[in-house]
C-alpha cells in the first residue's frame, strides 16, 4: 500500500471530506512525526509502535574497497520499534 492508496481508503470512509483535505490530513500526520524526531523527540503510538532518534557516535571507518581509513562524523538516525499489540497481530495472536 502506498500513500495515495491510504488516502483513498480514508476518503472512501469519509465522504463528507474533500479528497484534498484527506491528503492534507494524512500529510500532516507524517510531517508531524518527522518534525518531532527532527527536534529529538519520541513519538509513541501505543499499539502501533514508537519512533525515536538514536545517536551514532563518531567513528573511524574504512573504505572497504581501498582499505583507506575515513572519519565518520557523529549522526542521529530515526528508529522504529513495533508496538506489542501490532507485533502480536502480525503473529496471529
Amino acid at each position, binding site marked *: 500500500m502506498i500513500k495515495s492508496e491510504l488516502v483513498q481508503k480514508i476518503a472512501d470512509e469519509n465522504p463528507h471530506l474533500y479528497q484534498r483535505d484527506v491528503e492534507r*490530513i494524512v500529510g500532516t500526520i507524517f510531517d508531524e512525526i518527522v518534525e518531532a524526531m527532527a527536534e*529529538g523527540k519520541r513519538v509513541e*503510538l501505543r499499539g502501533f509502535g514508537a519512533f525515536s532518534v538514536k545517536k551514532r557516535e563518531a567513528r573511524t571507518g574504512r573504505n572497504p574497497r581501498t582499505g583507506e581509513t575515513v572519519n565518520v562524523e557523529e549522526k542521529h538516525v530515526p528508529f522504529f520499534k513495533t508496538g506489542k499489540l501490532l507485533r502480536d497481530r502480525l503473529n496471529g495472536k
Partner: protein
Amino acid sequence: MSVDTLTRMDLSEAVFREVGLSRNDSADLVESVLGHMAEALVSGEQVKISSFGTFSTRDKNARIGRNPKTGEEVPIAPRRVLTFRPSHLMKERVDTGNKA
C-alpha cells in the same frame, strides 16, 4: 506526559489545527490512518509512504536462543517481524535537526 514525547493526542491536535475539523473527528482520522496501516501490514502488504519511509514484514526462522543471564538455552519460535526503513528525507531531517 513528557514534553519530549508525542502521542496520538499531539497528532490529532496537529490535524485539528491544520484542517479545522473537530477534535473528535481529528482523533478518529489519526486512528483510522494507523488502523489501515496496521491492517495492510498484518495482511502481509508493505506500506510505503513517500518522503516518510517504508514498513515491511519479514519472516524469521525458529532458532535456539540463550538467556544471557542464566546461559540457559530457550527455543525461539518462528515469527514475523516488522521493519521500518526511513526515507532519505526523514534521515536528512532527523540528522540535521539534531545537529544544532
